[in-house]
């Protein structure tokens, strides 16, 4: 047989084999509901209906289903990550790859209005940010309580030097916030501090996750305390013992598909009195009152000692251990919360989860997650009898939604 013939037979056989092998493997491997590695639910087989077929939604779901449940998905995602690196793009799936394995989300889905968003973009709409700032200003001007506002910058803003990434957009957002936030909101500008420390080689932001490190949270905590004139109460760094959790891969790593990145560590800082604290996750439900009308009643659906939910430490989403992840409403009290300490209301996103362990040493804390709902801070202040308010909302959220514009 001629050599060409052998080659052509081999090519045909390999091509056909690869198609059939994947097809068979796809059929025989059971579907997974959840991907640990990506920390998200996977698409399962969509429900068929004639309408869904006609309007095309069935087809697009099937394609998602195929991609999510595909055999060796994680390895294939890794292959793409490597290939993209070879192209010299410096990023994959909108995540920058920097020095020493530093990752940072660069492209966001930016919010213009409820109906208009621009996907995969590195700019921001100043108007969206202005709406949020206006709401914050108006509320801050209306309250007599001591207030502090921190808007944590994104990794790409802090760690720009790791990617030789221009700081032009970061600086524009930074300037807008500094110029427009009213003094009443007591805004603490963290970007210069964090950037300086990052450039000095200090680990203030995580490498593989969009959050800051526990040390970064500690810095934010000290800045907040200082702004309230409580610098004498700040717990020094050496007051903490540090527990190191190994093998942590964050959300940015999941998005990036750079499987060759080394895992990092997550630090848990404790002073030793943690078991005296109680964290409750609270939900509101409608029950029939005595007069027969439905009234809202709050109840704790989850309560645990301290602020650390150790179950998360054995999973991929280790950051979720702090405050047991995101909940709409939580309290972190010393004992039953009636020890006479000051009460602090925290209106926040997940950046504050690593700050709470520090703050709860000084205050009983009520935590409200800033989601799409109207966030009536005044109501919460009254309900819980709070003495102070801290607002924590990071820049990614600020440009990706206008939830903060609902603050009142």
């Amino acid at each position, binding site marked *: 047989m001629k050599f060409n013939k052998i080659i052509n037979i081999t090519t045909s056989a390999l091509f056909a084999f690869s198609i059939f092998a994947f097809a068979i493997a796809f059929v025989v491997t059971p579907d997974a509901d959840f991907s640990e590695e990506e920390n998200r639910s996977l698409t399962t087989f969509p429900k068929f209906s004639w309408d869904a077929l006609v309007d095309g939604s069935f087809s697009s779901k099937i394609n998602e289903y195929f991609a999510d449940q595909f055999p060796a998905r994680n390895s294939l995602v890794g292959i793409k990550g490597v290939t993209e690196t070879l192209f010299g793009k410096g990023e994959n799936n909108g995540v920058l790859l920097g020095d020493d394995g530093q990752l940072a989300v660069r492209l966001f889905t930016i919010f213009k209005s409820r109906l208009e968003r621009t996907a995969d973009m590195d700019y921001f709409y100043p108007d969206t940010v202005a709406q949020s700032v206006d709401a914050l200003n108006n509320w801050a001007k209306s309250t007599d309580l001591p207030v502090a506002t921190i808007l944590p910058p994104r990794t790409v803003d802090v760690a720009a030097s790791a990617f030789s990434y*221009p700081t032009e957009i970061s600086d524009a957002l930074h300037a807008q916030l500094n110029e427009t936030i009213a003094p009443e909101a007591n805004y603490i500008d963290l970007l210069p501090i964090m950037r300086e420390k990052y450039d000095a080689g200090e680990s203030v932001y995580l490498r593989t996750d969009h959050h800051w490190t526990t040390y970064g949270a500690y810095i934010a905590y000290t800045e907040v305390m200082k702004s309230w004139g409580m610098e004498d109460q700040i717990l020094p760094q050496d007051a903490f013992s540090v527990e190191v959790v190994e093998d942590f891969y964050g959300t940015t790593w999941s998005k990036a598909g750079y499987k060759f990145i080394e895992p990092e560590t997550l630090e848990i800082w404790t002073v030793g009195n943690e078991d005296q604290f109680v964290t409750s996750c609270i939900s509101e439900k409608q029950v029939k009152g005595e007069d027969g009308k439905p009234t809202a009643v709050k109840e704790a659906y989850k309560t645990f000692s301290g602020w650390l939910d150790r179950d998360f430490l054995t999973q991929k989403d280790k950051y979720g251990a702090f405050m047991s992840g995101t909940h709409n409403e939580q309290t972190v009290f010393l004992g039953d919360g009636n020890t006479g300490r000051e009460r602090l209301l925290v209106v926040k996103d997940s950046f504050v989860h690593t700050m709470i362990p520090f703050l709860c040493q000084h205050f009983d804390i009520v935590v409200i997650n800033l989601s799409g709902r109207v966030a009536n801070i005044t109501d919460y202040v009254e309900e819980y009898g709070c003495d102070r308010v801290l607002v924590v909302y990071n820049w990614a959220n600020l440009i990706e939604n206008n939830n903060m514009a609902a603050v009142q």
Partner: protein
Amino acid sequence: MVFSSLLFLFAYLAVTLFLYYLIPNMKYRNWVLFIVSMLFYGWGEPLYIIVMLASITEAYGFGFLINKYRESNIKKARFYMVLSLAMNLASLLFFKYCNFFIENLRLLPFLTDVIAPIEGLKLPIGISFYTFQIMSYTIDLYRGQTDVQRNYVAFGTYVTLFPQLIAGPIVRYHDVDDQLTTRKETIDLFSSGARRFVVGLAKKVIIGDACAAYYEYFKASDAFADSAAGAWMVMIFYTLHIYYDFSGYSDMAIGLGRMIGFRFLENFNYPYISKSITEFWRRWHMSLGTWFKEYVYIPLGGNRVGKLKQYRNIAVVWFLTGFWHGANWNYILWGVYFGLILMAEKTFLLNALKKTPAFVQHIYSLLLIGFGWIIFSFTDASAGLNCFASLFGIGTSTFCTPTIGYQILHSLPLLVIGAIGATPLPKKLWDKLCTVDWISVGAIREDGTEEPIYMEKKELSVRGKVMAVATTVGTMAVFMVCVAYLVDSTFSPFLYFIF
């Protein structure tokens, strides 16, 4: 369904190839193709299958009448041909252009309240392509260039054949009529098809989609920081995107065709190396150009009429070419734009160009092609005009921002790879390394003649053998990388779908 999807590769193609080769008899193999092609189409357009079947049945039926009279009574034959074409075109006009006409007529004050666009009228995928294929049968038959097709399944297979159903190449009937009933599947053809398919898939998935993402990025960033450099990138990456997208699709179609024994004509011949627009249109989407040449330009008299009529013919063909691409003014403008350039080239420009150095001719061609793509890609005229003005720094705030500079720097490798890949250089290098052209097995030349299927004359040299093995391994590796891109894909539009 699109070729560059996991569903197509690992469900549809797997089942199709399995069934096709399970059945030994050509007649039933056509049945398989006809049925699976309908499924392929129905997956995206379950209702519009009826429209397609109606067009097929109509042309099939009239075929008998045209055949009956074409020797005895040419007038009658002509009547049936015109009737058949009219019915086919009516369907295309209705589904594709109806609302466009209504919307434009509504601009007349006295019609605004009288007529309204038809709600829910969606463009059936691929209607522009299959309508043209069906028409080619009717005309070829009338001209006596082919015999009547008595077998409904064979004719249906010709129209619906999934490799070329929704985005071409537009296969003329007389190019494949023999293949419908007597094609021969061979291992050489299959392997060359597999290689060609993988090349097309890589062009689309690895380069085309990345260019599309850069195009979208630069276009969107214009809303935040309008810069001249950004506008150039919009133009360059659209130019690359549409080539890799569309020629990649054609490669996949040709490759799939070979896997089931068909040999389609080439659709692209390195269009971006053209030295004039006249040449560009001989190299770009050749199956469409040929169709218009054979069925419109030449019947109108082509070049063999007076000067004035020649210009009229060019005008007609290029208006239609533009309009064929979409029911929108920008496509008409795009067609007219090229029509005017072609007229100018015909009159004097071509002769003048030939006196200039080659690089001037290349720059001239690429710029005009690029400007054309701006017209083509912006359905919103004012946005297109803005982009065009930005190229020359009109209305821009800056030449380049640091962020856009960063992006340009990091998209440069892709740009260079894309640019080199659009020339014959890689192929030439490969052929040279391989010493024999066994890779181009079964290709069809531009003039329609086939390259011999088996070119190996002597025993391969050691280098030839190494290259052959490397090609096989490389093909599979690239295929796996493409699958990886599909698994982790966020963005993968197919341009020629909307036409």
